[in-house]
């Protein structure tokens, strides 16, 4: 007893030393003698006298990198296709289904139905705890969709509605957000539209595209989306535990590119989620819910495996990179300096593919690229992160002058095998992809300014905290607005994600955005003291939706605002027009 107290006191004084000198003796043990208080625990004897170290000062586990293969998440299979085959009564669960499932109308003109083309599909998914093996030979408890980390990949066709019944078997209040999609508010993962533990919710993904002057706007059809948890106060924790997965949508146009051998097809089209984690000595994931700056890991996990290798043929591969970190920004580079062929930013294909030397990704940003391994002579190539970041504030340096280190940290090792494959797909720099319809200055109905800043240990937007029941911005549904996002907080980076639709960045600090951000995005990276001007449309669905900082710790500390497209806008500060608990 006395010994235990001394241990805790020792920890206290050591932490003092650590915060002063930012070093902590690596030999500091974490006694587990508290198990004395949980007498009778089954199997407690194993840990009773052992010393388990946590990862506060870094992962204490060492392992050889690039010894395990990187998996590609399995594709989620539907239970049934077509309304007449529906395997459950849609809406007959605790949290119900979106009203749009029954009306199928466009909010700006209820006489119009939103475009649909394919019969709807029905899925069922369970969020549950699972013991995974992230580091080779180490058991790690995670939480995942269908018990998988990352979750199963949904593949849907554009204009193919789907209903996903999500069951929650964890202890967390979850809310699944389909990031990059254009979907009803009920199914958008509004932070308190929960799937409570033991309950279920029918998520209705219309997979539709909005109208542009009465014609479906095919430029808005998304490609690489991802879904992750968005539950109030616990988002950072649940995402670190593994609640994230891909949702890939292919519309007719993109399918034609694949059929015409322009873009790589399925086995050569790889979603790749990069996340940083820290592991305690016992294999559990280290997470401190009381660290509000932002979670940083020192182990890079790609598709659920720490520093894996991936075997490829000598041909073109399409990779859908996703930064699944909470707070770490990454800048990807190939170890031989070879440029990528950039296909898309976030969910949307470029008008023409571009050449990209490095790929800067803030948390939640995606980038679709093609890597041509047929031109690589070596048998190994590393995908590395060259951006240095020391704390949750953001990467070192400024948005346009970032501190990078070459060589960086190897994330994935590509092992290249065989001879160049003949008759490969034709995509290269300059290939025509998807049309882009710019939002015109003349369409703008209102201008709003949002300032992101820190105040008394928490984060605010326009001097306000997030209020679940107040719409801070109510654009007129169907209209376009100019939003100015201003980051005034000293030294903090804020990647701002706006739900519902893409936005088009007009300028960053008065200058034109770089080519990869010049079209559509759904995360606007705000560097320190940066001002970003963007145009955005609010179509098809009324709210509420949120926009927030995608540094998930900042989001959990209420750096979030609500926007709610309504019919008689534009307005500010209204009660929510709808509520779907």
């Amino acid at each position, binding site marked *: 007893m006395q010994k235990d107290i001394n241990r805790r006191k020792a920890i206290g004084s050591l932490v003092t030393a650590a915060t002063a000198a930012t070093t902590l003796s690596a030999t500091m043990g974490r006694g587990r003698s508290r198990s004395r208080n949980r007498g009778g625990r089954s199997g407690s004897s194993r840990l009773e006298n052992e010393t388990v170290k946590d990862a506060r000062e870094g992962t204490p586990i060492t392992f050889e990198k690039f010894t395990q293969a990187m998996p590609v998440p399995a594709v989620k299979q539907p239970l049934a296709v077509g309304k007449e085959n529906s395997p459950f009564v849609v809406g007959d669960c605790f949290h119900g289904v979106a009203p749009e499932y029954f009306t199928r109308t466009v909010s700006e003109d209820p006489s119009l139905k939103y475009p649909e083309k394919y019969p709807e599909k029905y899925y069922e998914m369970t969020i549950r705890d699972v013991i995974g093996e992230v580091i080779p030979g180490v058991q790690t408890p995670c939480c995942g969709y269908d018990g998988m980390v990352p979750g199963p990949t949904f593949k849907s066709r554009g204009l193919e509605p789907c209903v996903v019944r999500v069951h929650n078997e964890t202890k967390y209040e979850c809310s699944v957000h389909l990031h990059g999609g254009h979907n009803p508010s009920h199914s958008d993962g509004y932070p308190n539209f929960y799937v409570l533990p033991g309950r279920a919710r029918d998520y209705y993904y219309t997979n539709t595209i909005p109208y542009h002057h009465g014609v479906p706007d095919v430029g808005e059809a998304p490609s690489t989306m991802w879904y992750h948890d968005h539950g109030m106060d616990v988002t950072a924790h649940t995402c670190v535990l593994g609640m994230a997965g891909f949702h890939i949508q292919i519309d007719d146009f993109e399918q034609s590119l694949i059929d015409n051998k322009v873009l790589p097809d399925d086995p050569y089209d790889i979603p790749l989620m990069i996340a940083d984690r820290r592991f305690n000595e*016992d294999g559990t994931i280290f997470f401190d819910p009381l660290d509000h700056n932002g979670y940083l890991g020192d182990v890079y996990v790609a598709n659920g495996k720490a520093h894996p290798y991936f075997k490829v043929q000598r041909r073109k591969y399409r990779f859908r990179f996703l930064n699944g970190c909470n707070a770490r920004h990454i800048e990807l580079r190939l170890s031989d300096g070879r440029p990528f062929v950039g296909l898309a930013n976030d969910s949307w294909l470029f008008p023409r593919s571009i050449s990209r030397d490095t790929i800067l990704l803030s948390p939640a940003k995606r980038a679709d690229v093609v890597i041509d391994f047929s031109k690589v002579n070596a048998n190994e190539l590393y995908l590395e992160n060259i951006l240095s970041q020391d704390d949750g504030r953001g990467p070192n340096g400024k948005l346009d002058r970032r501190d990078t280190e070459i060589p960086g940290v190897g994330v994935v090792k590509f092992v290249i095998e065989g001879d160049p494959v003949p008759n490969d797909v034709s995509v290269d720099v300059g290939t025509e992809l998807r049309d882009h319809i710019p939002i015109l200055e003349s369409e703008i109905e209102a201008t709003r300014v949002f300032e992101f800043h820190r105040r008394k240990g928490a984060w605010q937007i326009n001097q306000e905290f997030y209020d679940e029941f107040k719409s801070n911005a109510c654009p007129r549904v169907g209209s376009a607005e100019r939003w100015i996002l201003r980051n005034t907080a000293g030294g903090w980076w804020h990647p701002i994600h706006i739900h519902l639709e893409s936005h088009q960045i007009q300028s960053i600090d008065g200058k034109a955005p770089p080519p990869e951000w010049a079209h559509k995005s759904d995360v606007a990276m705000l560097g320190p003291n940066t001002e970003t001007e963007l145009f955005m449309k609010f179509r098809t669905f009324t709210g509420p939706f949120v926009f927030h900082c995608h540094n998930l710790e900042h989001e959990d500390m209420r750096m979030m605002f609500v926007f709610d497209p309504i019919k008689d806008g534009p307005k500010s500060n209204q009660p929510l027009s709808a509520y779907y608990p």
Partner: protein
Amino acid sequence: MSNIKRSISVGCLFSLSVMLTAGCSQSPNVASNDSAQVESEVDRQNNIRVASLSTDDYETVLDARVSDRFPDIDLLDHRGRKLQFYTDLVEDRCVCIIYFYTRCVGSCPITTQVVKKLRKDMAETFGDDLLFVSLTLEPEVDSPQELQTYMKLHGIEDDPDLPEWIYATGDFEELDALRRNLGIYDIDPIIDADKTEHAAILTFGNDRLDRWAALPVGMDYRQLKSAMTRIMGNNERQRYQSVVQYREAMMQNFRDNTAENNTAENNVTEN
């Protein structure tokens, strides 16, 4: 120590507040010795009323908790009791931790009023199941007498019908280390040196279920309360009951508090 209390099982959670009122004599006897004497009134005052909820059959997979990192520092509370932060105030309990100092005129009085209201309102849901702990940022000034004066000044009483609220002081270095462990600090040392920066965050959690969060005091009160019950609640009733109650009230009494927060009149300009 206190083996009896630790045998409370999960199944009893619903009747817990009843048991706790009846069972407070089983609470750990903090300052006096452990001899099985009949408790005098003085001894009773020395009890921490919030029971420890540990059960025999609850365990995490590999047994790591957030609170493992909290140092078990010595504290002196407003009644002069010697307490240990982890063992007496956190372990297996629901606790809400507030940083303050008696000379503070910035955030502290507002925070104190909010917590006072929370203490009253959360008694309905949690009963005796919850503990509020105010830790001083200026232990060199705040003696137990000062703390008592501060409590009197703000009308805070030791009320057996309300969750217990402890004001505590201790060693500056230790309290400062604890503050950093609880995440109440700023990376920028200049901002961190301003004590009022740390007095507007409530850090709360349920150690038994290992759920912790922190929220700014300045947010909407009802949502703050709801978030606290959701994170700290031991069962569905405690966690989600208030969600239903305040949701309805919220929708009816919508209030635009933009002006109060002293922001620009309206953040929208029509073109």
